[in-house]
């Protein structure tokens, strides 16, 4: 075991820190009192000019698409450096490492592996430079965790596909120029085989976006309807029927969970600060033994996530694939996302019920937002039930249940 970093890695860390000291648009907040979370979509829009400058500064460093090949404009960076970059920017409470969030997470890797040269030229730079925002057309009403049961279809008509159907839970659909869409092109084929991946401009005729309001009052996702939407065949990513593979694929990303972990470490810091300000069961909350147990338990879980992530990363560095075991950290994260909001509201006591804009609201309702937003993290990336099935079936070899 070795938890030290090489001279080169330490030098890179210093470079990142120096960059953040100058370019991180959140640096004032991070240095001072409790940060507001930075993923509030509406307020992000207000801060757009600053964020674009941030993206541009990152692009110049080659730190957007950090691990993407240099040939397509990526940074060509290594796994450890990528972890360091995420860690430091997380600690500094900087915005995401690149604004075209879905483009970077889901679309770019697919295009790099399966795209034509033309597609790479057309889409990759625009993702890196945050000119194109993307959304993902995966989930459908009724498909839920069983993604491959999708029914939205495309029929070939000359050199076009004609798309009919519906997607839902499409994050950021309202702000996106493009969608990476899964459609069924062969209804006769087996569930996973009849699926094709198309790249669809959101301003195409027949695309209709209906925002869905979430319980926290925001509209983070939408339903998207396709009424005979025509897209040219050259917008197909990969071969017909290859859609499932294209989507499952993401370029070997580091599996250290470090972005989630640093976010949670920040939450924990803020919670400790909160507990020093509030009273609970007749004393300052930080001195309440019940609160202390919960804080310590939370810290222990976060540290476990961090370390387990490093074990995953080590496995990758040694050339092995990391798969089902990441469900371990996903389950910890799910538990933490709920508990963070719950503990914060408990620490606040009666004040825990006051939301943004209320007289008496603490930190302007920041923790209430967390308590109303956890399901998007907990349910979004595969429900805890699905994660437990993955672990039971793939790590313990237990039988399928259906």
């Amino acid at each position: 075991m070795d938890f030290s970093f090489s001279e080169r890695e330490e030098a890179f860390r210093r470079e990142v820190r120096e960059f953040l000291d100058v370019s991180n648009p959140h640096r004032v907040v991070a240095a001072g009192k409790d940060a507001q979370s930075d993923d509030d979509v509406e307020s992000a829009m207000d801060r757009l000019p600053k964020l674009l400058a941030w993206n541009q500064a990152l692009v110049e460093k080659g730190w957007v698409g950090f691990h993407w090949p240099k040939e397509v404009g990526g940074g060509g960076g290594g796994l450890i450096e990528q972890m360091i970059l995420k860690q430091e920017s997380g600690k500094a409470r900087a915005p995401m490492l690149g604004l075209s969030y879905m483009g970077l997470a889901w679309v770019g890797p697919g295009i790099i592996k399966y795209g034509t040269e033309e597609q790479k030229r057309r889409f990759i730079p625009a993702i890196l430079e945050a000119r194109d925002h993307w959304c993902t057309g995966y989930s459908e009403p009724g498909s839920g965790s069983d993604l491959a049961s999708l029914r939205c279809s495309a029929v070939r008509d000359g050199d076009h596909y004609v798309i009919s159907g519906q997607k839902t839970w499409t994050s950021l659909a309202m702000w996106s120029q493009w969608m990476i869409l899964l459609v069924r092109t062969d209804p006769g084929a087996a569930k996973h085989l009849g699926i094709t991946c198309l790249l669809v401009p959101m301003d195409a005729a027949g695309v209709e976006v209906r925002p869905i309001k979430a319980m926290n009052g925001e509209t983070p996702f939408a339903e998207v309807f396709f009424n005979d939407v025509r897209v040219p065949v050259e917008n197909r990513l990969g071969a017909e029927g290859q859609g499932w593979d294209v989507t499952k694929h993401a370029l070997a990303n580091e599996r250290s969970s470090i972005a989630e972990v640093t976010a949670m470490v920040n939450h924990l810091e803020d919670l400790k600060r909160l507990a020093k300000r509030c009273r609970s069961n007749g004393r300052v909350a930080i001195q309440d033994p019940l609160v202390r147990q919960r804080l310590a338990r939370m810290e222990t879980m976060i540290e476990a996530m961090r370390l387990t992530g490093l074990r995953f990363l080590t496995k990758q560095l040694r050339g092995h694939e990391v798969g089902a075991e990441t469900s371990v950290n996903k389950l910890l994260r799910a538990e933490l996302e709920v508990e963070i909001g719950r503990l914060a509201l408990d620490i606040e006591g009666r004040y825990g019920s006051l939301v943004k804009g209320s007289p008496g609201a603490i930190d302007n309702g920041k923790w209430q937002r967390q308590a109303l937003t956890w399901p998007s993290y907990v349910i979004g990336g595969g429900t805890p039930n699905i994660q437990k099935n993955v672990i039971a079936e793939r790590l313990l070899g237990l039988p399928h249940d259906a």
Partner: protein
Amino acid sequence: MDFGFSADQEQLKAQVRRFLDSECPMDRVRQVMAAKESHDRGLWSKIAELGWPALTVPESFGGLGMRWEDLVVIAEEMGRSLFPSPFLASAVAARAIALMGSEGQKSRWLPLLASGDLIATLAILEDSDDLSAAGIGLVAESDGEHVVLSGSKMFIPHAQAAGLLLVAAREHGGISLFAVPADAAGVTVTPLRLIDQSQRAARVTLAAVVVESSDRIGEPGAVWSDLAAVLDAGTVVLAAEMVGAADAALRLAAEYAKVRKQFGHPIGRFQGVKHRLAEILVDIESSRSLVYFASWAVDHQEDPRGAVSMAKAYASQALDRAGEEGIQIHGAIGFTWECDAQLYYKRGRYCRNLAGSPEYHHERLLSVQGI
């Protein structure tokens, strides 16, 4: 020994249920949530017509003289419907007047409360988290005839809708209670924005508000123990609402689990879902038993505090779990504004630390036993 609803109670429950189903479906609740009004006046006049505000007011003052356990029957149904109304808050205030007021005060206020022409609420607790008398700092200064009240109250339920505030104040080293018209000069009611929009609460400031000495309810500086008992009766009603809300959340999730399919089967077929629903049912039946008993205890036991604390603590657990799991079982749908599952979750978050957290009540349960 008989631990079940009487035929009268069953009838009352059915009447209330019918009314809520027809007059206050979730659409109506959502209208109230979105509205800026202090309360839904249409709903209020309808329940006033039905005589609900009179239920627990003594017969000699225009009421029906029913017991607190009867109110709990109703409260559970109201919780189930997330009934957005100052009704329960006003009933608790009426109990305070009935318990502590002089004949004159009862004659003056109770008939108005019974008829629904007046809405009242208790304005006891303040900014601190202290639920004991020590938490009360609002000052009463008296010159014999007049009393001047200065200070502020926090988290006052439905103060927006109230015409009458029952204000606890520090006087003669103890606690006094005053009937203060909400429109008295110097009274400011500032609405709070709650995580549960179906509810209302406000901060109330009293800037040198002058009331008559005759508006003092009970002995000067000597009402805390009576007042604490009324707060406990209110806590039971709150717990009953919570049990109702938890049960509604459970039923909603169970019905969804029967129809929603995944991998070719209703999700309610998988133990991962059914066992969680079963655990919620256990919590609900358990807390229901505790709440019913506590409602009996506040009328019949010398010291019902233990019973009340157990009811509130367990009801919180039931609604916590039902609210959270209700969302999770619904999956992404549960997280949308249109889905009712999330409303029960919000109710749970609002109520958990109201009138004492589960941890507070656990402590109290032992301390009233001298442990």
